[in-house]
């Protein structure tokens, strides 16, 4: 069948093309809105390129560079320490904990950090005593850095650990036979593996920090520490200055574009995995001194990551949860969040599945020839939507729709579609290995036996793909639940999600309420991620 079914008549390829077109409309429409606005007010847009704008751009890059440095360098040593000790009680638990920040909504993490290090945080008194005077709370650059390291140190650690785990066990056997100590084995064995994944990992972290919105909004605390994304939001929601928003967005797009090109050159990982790495068996011993140093290092990283998470739990438990549960605004926001996130997750899985199916069908068709653009776009290309900040898409549509009555009516649609597209690379990551493997096993057999269409879906595909699809769904839903990008622009009293309400309560200094909502949100997201991991595990 392979040779005769033509490109557009294969339903799988058609579905992939439709998915790509939908994504292109969402992203392209946003850029069109921005360009139209910029063209209609050229002088305004040009005037917006002032020193303030460049200061913001400089700060955006500066905080991202510092965050990357502070996340990646320690991560090298934490990963190495973990890889030197492949078996100790609690190791799995630590790795599991290191996967948590990935699942935690940024606004919840920000609240956790404030609950620890804020002006009224758990450590405020100690810090006041330590530095003299009253502790002003962790805001501005230091707050942003702490939050970014909280998210990215564990991420980078997991990437490096993965790189170290790919080293063949024979190298370790050889190293111990040759009597290599910690120094030489780092220099000769571990460092080359880490160096190979360093550019990709650092690039990804840098990218995530440039595009960081929620953290900077909640912890930046003023014009001195503002990034482009937060400035876009302020220009649209507070200053009603679309010309400035357009200028800011253009700059953001140019910046992310440049970094993206660099990342592609480096062959960076554009998708993040939630699975636990499995450590290979190690040979050779670690000296007591090194073991102690490793222990201290891992413990420090552990405390750094566990601190804010514990703080969320503690602060949340202190909130008046029964009153919150009766609060009509909280109930409405929770219902809105769940409905929108469910829709976003369904759409995300559908988009992901279409692209995965199209990619495989196209790969089959070309039979060893070079990839076409469609296959490229549905394969590696799909991962790159991650680098288009949701705020930019939101801002484009916001500008385009702002004179119409549709602006706030479009809120649910915007939240669902943008979150679906942003979660799609994760859905693809969950679905594609199982889908490709199932295709590898079953395609020829189904063709030969004439199993096709609905019969094939019912008998063959659904039983095999049910679990990966659920994994993708749960992951996408968790990401959508915690997102504060689009809703920050489009949210209103009539459409509120939990993160939006959380931001509002933080803004009006109702810290107890905020802590309670954060706990609720954290539990929702972590439950989903836990389910995603359960579904994701292959049967033994």
């Amino acid at each position, binding site marked *: 069948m392979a040779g*005769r079914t033509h490109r557009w008549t294969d339903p799988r390829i058609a579905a992939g093309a439709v998915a790509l077109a939908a994504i292109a409309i969402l992203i392209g429409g946003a850029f069109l809105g921005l360009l139209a606005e910029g063209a209609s007010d050229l002088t305004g847009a040009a005037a917006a390129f002032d020193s303030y704008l460049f200061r913001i751009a400089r700060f955006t890059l500066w905080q991202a560079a510092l965050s990357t440095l502070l996340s990646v360098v320690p991560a090298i040593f934490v990963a190495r320490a973990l890889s030197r000790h492949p078996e100790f009680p609690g190791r799995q638990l630590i790795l599991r904990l290191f996967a948590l920040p990935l699942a935690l909504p940024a606004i919840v993490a920000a609240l956790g950090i404030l609950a620890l290090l804020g002006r009224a945080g758990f450590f405020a008194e100690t810090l006041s005593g330590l530095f003299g005077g009253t502790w002003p709370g962790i805001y501005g650059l230091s707050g942003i850095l702490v939050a970014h390291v909280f998210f990215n140190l564990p991420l980078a650690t997991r990437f490096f650990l993965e790189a170290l785990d790919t080293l063949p066990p024979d190298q370790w056997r050889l190293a111990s036979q040759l009597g290599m100590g910690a120094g030489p084995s780092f220099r000769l064995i571990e460092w080359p593996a880490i160096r190979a994944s360093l550019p990709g990992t650092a690039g990804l972290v840098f990218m995530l920090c440039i595009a960081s919105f929620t953290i900077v909004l909640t912890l930046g605390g003023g014009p001195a520490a503002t990034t482009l994304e937060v400035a876009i939001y302020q220009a649209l929601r507070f200053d009603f200055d679309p010309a400035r928003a357009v200028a800011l967005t253009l700059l953001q797009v140019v910046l992310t574009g440049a970094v993206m090109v660099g990342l592609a050159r480096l062959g960076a990982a554009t998708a993040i995995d939630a699975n636990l790495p499995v450590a290979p068996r190690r040979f050779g011993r670690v000296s007591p001194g090194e073991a102690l140093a490793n222990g201290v290092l891992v413990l420090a990283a552990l405390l750094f990551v566990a601190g804010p998470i514990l703080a969320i739990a503690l602060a949340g438990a202190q909130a008046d949860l029964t009153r919150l549960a009766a609060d009509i605004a909280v109930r409405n926001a929770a219902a809105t969040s769940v409905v929108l996130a469910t829709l976003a997750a369904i759409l995300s899985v559908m988009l992901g599945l279409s692209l995965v199916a199209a990619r495989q069908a196209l790969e089959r068709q070309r039979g060893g020839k070079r990839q076409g653009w469609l296959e490229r776009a549905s394969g590696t290309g799909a991962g790159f939507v991650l680098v288009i900040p949701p705020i930019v898409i939101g801002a484009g549509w916001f500008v385009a729709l702002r004179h119409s009555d549709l602006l706030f009516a479009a809120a649910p649609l915007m939240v669902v579609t943008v979150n679906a597209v942003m979660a799609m690379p994760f859905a693809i990551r969950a679905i594609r290995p199982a889908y490709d493997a199932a295709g*590898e096993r079953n395609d020829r*057999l189904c*063709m030969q*036996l004439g199993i096709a269409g609905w019969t094939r879906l019912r*008998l063959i595909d659904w039983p095999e793909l049910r679990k990966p699809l659920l994994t993708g769904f749960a992951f996408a839903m968790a990401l959508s639940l915690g997102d504060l990008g689009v809703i920050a622009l489009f949210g209103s009293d009539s459409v509120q999600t939990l993160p939006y309400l959380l931001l509002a309560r933080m803004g009006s200094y109702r810290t107890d309420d905020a802590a309670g909502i954060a706990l609720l949100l954290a539990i929702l997201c972590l439950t989903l991620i836990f389910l995603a991991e359960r579904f994701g595990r292959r049967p033994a």
Partner: protein
Amino acid sequence: MTDIRERHPGGQPVRLDHAAFTYGSADMLFDADFPSSTITAVMGPSGSGKSTLLNLVAGFETPRKGRVLIGDSDVTALAPAERPVSMIFQENNLFAHLDVAKNVGLGRSPALRLTSDDRRAVADALARTGLSDKEHRLPRELSGGERQRVALARALVRDRPVLLLDEPFGSLGPALRQDMLDLLAGVQAERRMTVLFVTHQPEDARRLAQKIVFLEAGIVTAAGSTEEFFAGDGPEGFRRYVGSQS
């Protein structure tokens, strides 16, 4: 019950008529005849196009030029399921989540809607392949040899005139391999289908095949009876491939 088993379609000749195929940068051109109701071993070095040849006959690949003929009809444009062919792969012959009986039953109805005749045929095929007590096992609960027996049982219930085997016993140990060869020879003697099987083992070819087709770099460089191939003055390329043992 014997009535059903008596009426088998027998074999049909298979012919590749200047079938050209390109994979990546490799160009292949197949021209070969496989007589009805005989067993032909398809041999040749890795990458010489053995699997591609089978895929062309089965319909998984379509030739760029040329024809594929089975019996009197040109099947070049037919989908795999429409061709009078069954194929057994080296692995992944079974759906992992379906039990043995269902995997075999799919050979009768792709939607698994089985009549009582179908069920009887499945039971007979399982008995013939020595799997009667394993019909409710899942593939992962079977050994490698048993899985290939299930695949053979399914080929039996499909009852097509041509059977293709792509290194079906490549991953089995020597004793199991002997059993499978005996089973295959027995089944072929009963059903008289045309068999094409890809193998790397000269011994398998010697034991089972009446004919050998030898490929090098995408072209049939020698074809003839097994005795000719294994006589001291067999084709040069074949002697080099097999080594000093013949």
